[in-house]
């Protein structure tokens, strides 16, 4: 049932038109290197298999009468078909390997392949999490070493490694805060979150049973200290702050904010999503932070993989260290040991966040990256990331309207005033950038400015790349001013698909493939 390359046939007049049209359709849909690819389910045959497995030996059946009898519906493809299928799919993606990916707040930096090789060493990759500790001393040493690097870079005395992603780390940090407050008999109910926060912050606070209140920003895009001082009270459990914040600005009053918070009995959660801007130059401990997650997939370059997996270790202050969740690694004369149960813990862990010990594969990659850079290289990372962002800000400011005056940290924020009256939206502008060969910046976030365009170049981009990007943005801004609205609304044109109908997708969700009822009905 190969239905992979079906396409309706054309009349001769249509074909004539095709011959003279540059955007002509080809016979079966492929266009040079852009290869169409149907779903695997539409290519398979039950007679094929891409893995050679031996015949199962004859044994008794112990399935308790529950043997699966019905067909599952999986496709059947040979190995070369599978390789081609997924290779073609990959070619429809843009990656950091392909080009500039200035997604603000996402830190899309180079992903070194050394890290991949290290994570695949059989001594790490082929290791069961519940093997006897005597057989996994090297793995525990790696976890302990990573913890040491993270503690040194943050200046904080404890670290929880098990959170599986940044949002999971936030949950871990906020749970430790709540556990610590409850341990001192304190039932505060409110968590303060700035308007510019990532959506995960309020979602996490709500999962911990807190009521979320927004605190205002001042005209400069930073927390309004006076408003915060005014609001701080005995009902405030914690402040969740991203620093540098999502406008790409360092919260210059952060030490004062921490003092007000602590004096009022609250605890300080820092969203460490933007740690890349300060790594090696500023230690969060010196800012008065009690808990901060670190997205290993951002600052420490573990690959984003099309949306995960990530890893979100959390560093803790002295006040929160006793509440660090299970499990964790300790080191004594006999070697490394995992503390997996509350009864064996020295403090009062708030619980276990997930099965096993954390995202080991990400730990290996992150440590490989950290060791490659070292103390000197990591400081250079922060400096080059900030330099690149400020260079973009300076070069683009005459063309694109910056949201705030002054310099920025690792990312620069613009608003859509430069598009005012052109009929072109931030979205249209971003889609046109795709045709210029760039991945768009983050759009419409943070919510504090209208039509936000947030650009984070990272330290692994060359000046030449930034210059080309500036040239493309300038040229597009010129076209917008010239009133070429249709050009923007038709973009992107050179991608495997044009703009997709998201409204239709949401109104009548089709979330899986289904076998057509029968050949006749399908036709």
């Amino acid at each position, binding site marked *: 049932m190969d239905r992979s390359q079906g396409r309706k046939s054309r009349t001769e007049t249509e074909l004539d038109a095709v011959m003279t049209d540059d955007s002509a359709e080809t016979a079966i849909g492929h266009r040079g290197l852009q290869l169409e690819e149907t779903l695997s389910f539409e290519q398979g045959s039950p007679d094929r298999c891409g893995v050679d497995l031996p015949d199962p030996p004859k044994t008794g059946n112990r399935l308790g009468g529950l043997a699966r009898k019905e067909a599952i519906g999986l496709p059947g493809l040979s190995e070369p078909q599978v390789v081609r299928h997924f290779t073609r799919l990959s070619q429809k993606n843009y990656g950091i390997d392909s080009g500039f990916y200035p997604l603000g707040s996402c830190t899309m930096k180079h992903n070194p392949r050394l890290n991949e090789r290290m994570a695949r060493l059989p001594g790490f990759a082929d290791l069961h999490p519940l093997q006897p500790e005597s057989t996994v001393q090297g793995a525990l040493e790696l976890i302990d070493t990573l913890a040491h690097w993270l503690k040194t870079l943050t200046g904080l005395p404890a670290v929880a490694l098990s959170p599986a992603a940044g949002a999971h780390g936030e949950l871990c940090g906020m749970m430790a805060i709540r556990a610590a407050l409850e341990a001192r008999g304190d039932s505060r109910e409110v968590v303060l979150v700035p308007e510019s926060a990532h959506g995960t912050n309020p979602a996490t606070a709500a999962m911990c049973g807190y009521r979320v209140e927004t605190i205002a920003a001042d005209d400069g895009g930073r927390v309004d200290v006076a408003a915060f001082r005014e609001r701080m009270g005995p009902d405030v459990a914690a402040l969740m702050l991203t620093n540098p914040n999502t406008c790409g600005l360092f919260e210059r009053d952060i030490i004062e904010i921490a003092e007000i918070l602590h004096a009022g009995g609250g605890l300080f959660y820092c969203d460490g999503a933007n740690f890349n801007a300060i790594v090696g130059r500023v230690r969060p401990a010196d800012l008065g932070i009690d808990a901060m997650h670190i997205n290993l997939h951002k600052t420490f370059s573990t690959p984003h993989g099309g949306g995960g997996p990530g890893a979100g270790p959390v560093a803790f202050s002295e006040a929160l260290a006793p509440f660090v969740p299970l499990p964790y690694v300790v080191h004594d004369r006999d070697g490394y040991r995992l503390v997996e149960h509350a009864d064996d813990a020295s403090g009062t862990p708030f619980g276990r966040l997930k099965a096993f010990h954390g995202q080991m594969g990400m730990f290996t990659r992150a440590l490989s990256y950290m060791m490659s850079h070292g103390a000197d290289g990591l400081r250079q990372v922060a400096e080059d990331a900030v330099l690149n962002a400020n260079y973009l800000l300076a070069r683009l400011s005459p063309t694109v309207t910056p949201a705030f005056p002054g310099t920025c940290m690792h990312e620069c924020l613009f608003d859509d005033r430069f598009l005012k009256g052109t009929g072109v939206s931030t979205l249209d502008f971003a889609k046109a950038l795709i045709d210029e060969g760039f991945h768009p910046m983050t759009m*419409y976030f943070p919510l504090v400015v209208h039509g936000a365009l947030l650009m984070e170049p990272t330290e692994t981009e060359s000046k030449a790349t930034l210059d080309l990007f500036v040239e493309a943005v300038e040229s597009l801004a010129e076209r917008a001013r010239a009133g070429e609205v249709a050009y923007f609304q038709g973009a992107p044109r050179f991608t495997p698909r044009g703009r997709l109908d*998201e*409204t239709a997708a*949401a*109104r009548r969700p089709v979330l899986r493939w289904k076998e057509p009822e029968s050949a006749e009905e399908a036709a």
Partner: protein
Amino acid sequence: MSALRFTKDHEWIRVDGDTGTVGISDYAQEQLGDIVFVDLPDVGKSLAKGDEAAVVESVKAASEIYAPVNGEVAEVNQALADEPAKVNTDPMGEGWFLKMKIADAAELDELMDEAAYDAYLESLR
């Protein structure tokens, strides 16, 4: 006697006897863009004025619809499940959300009539 009243959050309520039909204004649907889903309450649920009565979703946003007055949900517009687009095409008619049994008709006086709402919209522009 039937009367049409509006809230500052752009809900409307059309009163017929002790029942009020609730929906969102044309201005609101335009601001929200293409509606893809409307989450309606259970019939029989009692709502205080200002309570979340329904949630209306576009592709990139979700907005709460608040009860304009105290009352109990008497009926919901099942047709929106299949055709949420009715909220866009006919917000004041077929795109209604729910009917509620009004607890205290006097509360309606606190809402805007059509002329006052138009003036309110003008002030937003």
